[in-house]
């Protein structure tokens, strides 16, 4: 069973200093085992200005087993799968310690964003590009950040979708239904 007391305490402590760290953890649903972590892209990197969401699933063994973490936001990085968002980071695998917390794990991921390890890649294509054509890599990473990791205000989102030709009322309701995820809302609008 997940140690609920600990998870609750972690949530409290992490969200207490969001202002300083910029790292927050929120519940995904009713359950304490599915969480969403948010980290700001580190300054001075192609990820600057982005806000990256990380899907967190706590296994029964937590905190004795590492939390399962995966990028929900698409990101162009040698150690993060551009397809699945899987993260290649030792502390999320064999180097996990129960003394680490969700916040420290998210901090480590943030550090990974600013210091890629192309020699131990998760996404071979990105790693190749990082090593051979660094200029293009930076460009792509920045473009992905702009495209997928920039959070717009609600009004901006509505504006953007209305500009695409959807009626405002429908856009608003669809965005509300999808939790203000503009990509999901767009899909829904297109299909529906």
């Amino acid at each position: 069973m997940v140690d609920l007391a600990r998870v609750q305490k972690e949530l409290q402590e992490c969200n207490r200093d969001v202002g300083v760290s910029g790292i927050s953890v929120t519940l995904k649903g009713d359950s304490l085992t599915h969480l969403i972590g948010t980290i700001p892209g580190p300054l001075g990197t192609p990820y600057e200005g982005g806000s990256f969401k990380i899907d967190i699933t706590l296994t029964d063994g937590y905190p004795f087993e590492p939390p399962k973490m995966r990028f929900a936001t698409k990101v162009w990085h040698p150690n993060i799968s551009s397809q699945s968002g899987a993260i290649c980071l030792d502390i999320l695998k064999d180097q996990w310690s129960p003394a680490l917390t969700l916040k420290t794990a998210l901090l480590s991921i943030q550090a990974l964003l600013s210091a890629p390890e192309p020699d131990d890649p998760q996404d071979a294509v990105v790693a190749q590009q990082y090593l051979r054509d660094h200029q293009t890599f930076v460009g792509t990473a920045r473009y992905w950040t702009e495209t997928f990791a920039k959070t717009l205000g609600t009004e901006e989102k509505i504006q953007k979708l209305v500009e695409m030709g959807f009626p405002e009322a429908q856009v608003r309701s669809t965005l509300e239904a999808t939790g203000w995820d503009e990509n999901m809302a767009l899909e829904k609008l297109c299909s529906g």
Partner: protein
Amino acid sequence: MVSDSIPNASIPVASSNPKDFAKKKRANRSAKLKQCKLDARREQWLSQVKNKGSKDEMNVGGNQAPATNVANERGRLIEKLEIKPRAEEDNEVNIDSSNHYSDSDSNSNSPISHTSSIMEGNDSAANFAGSSSSSISSCSGTGGCCSGSLSEEDEQGDDDDCLDDWEAVADALAATDQKLEQHHPGLDSPREKGENVHLSSQTNVSNGVTGIDTTKQKSEHRGLASRPPVSCKAWRPDDAFRPQILPNLSKQYSFPMNSERHCHGGALWGCKRLSVPTSCPICCEDLDLTDTSFHPCTCGFILCLFCHKRILEEDGRCPGCRKQYNHGSVESEATVDGGSMKFRLARSCSMISRS
């Protein structure tokens, strides 16, 4: 959700009142926690008794703790085997007793010098071709008897069995160390100074060479005692073998309260944890007096006994420094027990074969 977190299945599912349910759950959990802590406390106590016992040359109440028992038993066994002529024993016993001999042999060097004794084994095997005949015939009494059997044992001593056994019972054997050293001061002399023995007269063997050798042994002893994997103690700041990367704890030594255990607040937990934390960093439960006085790792990472037990059941690494929890904990005790089982068997076998 709730039923997930109930440790015991004995709670009736029919209890409809959620408050009752939660209450029972809490009671049950705390009971389990208590039991767990008692267990861990017992383990801790046992390991303390074991350490103490071996320091006091195992004269402390033999029947009180199994760990001391093991040490006692081994002590007797070794003595017994030393006196016994090897020819009488059958094959199976020979293998076991060879382990004993190798133990007692390296014991006289130091409790740690196992590797060196094996390495010497090769040399001495070669030396012995020349020296064994003279040393056996020349040395009289127990010393001679022992060195005679050593020659055979050294050839077998390269076995892996021997290595495993040695490491497992190193703690228990530490107690017999000094005793054996007194009994066989010249034990190593024929092996190391094989050629000397060959050339020199009998008086030289018993006087001069022995003197040189014991000093040599002692210096060897000291050098090896500071080796990391076996000594199981925190690094001394002035230790030559201490890795450079380790942080300097000298500041913490200056705190009078930690001078004894060396484990108050390691590098990672330094400044913040100079005062003992009030709740377990792993499960966030409050730490009681037993927990706060429980120092499972030299890095000073404190956690509750409940979490410590859980970690031991899994990979057994300290959450603070990721190093393996070692010795004085459940794991090493288990292997010592296993070792004693084996020795007990060997003993009974030899008795059967003799009668």
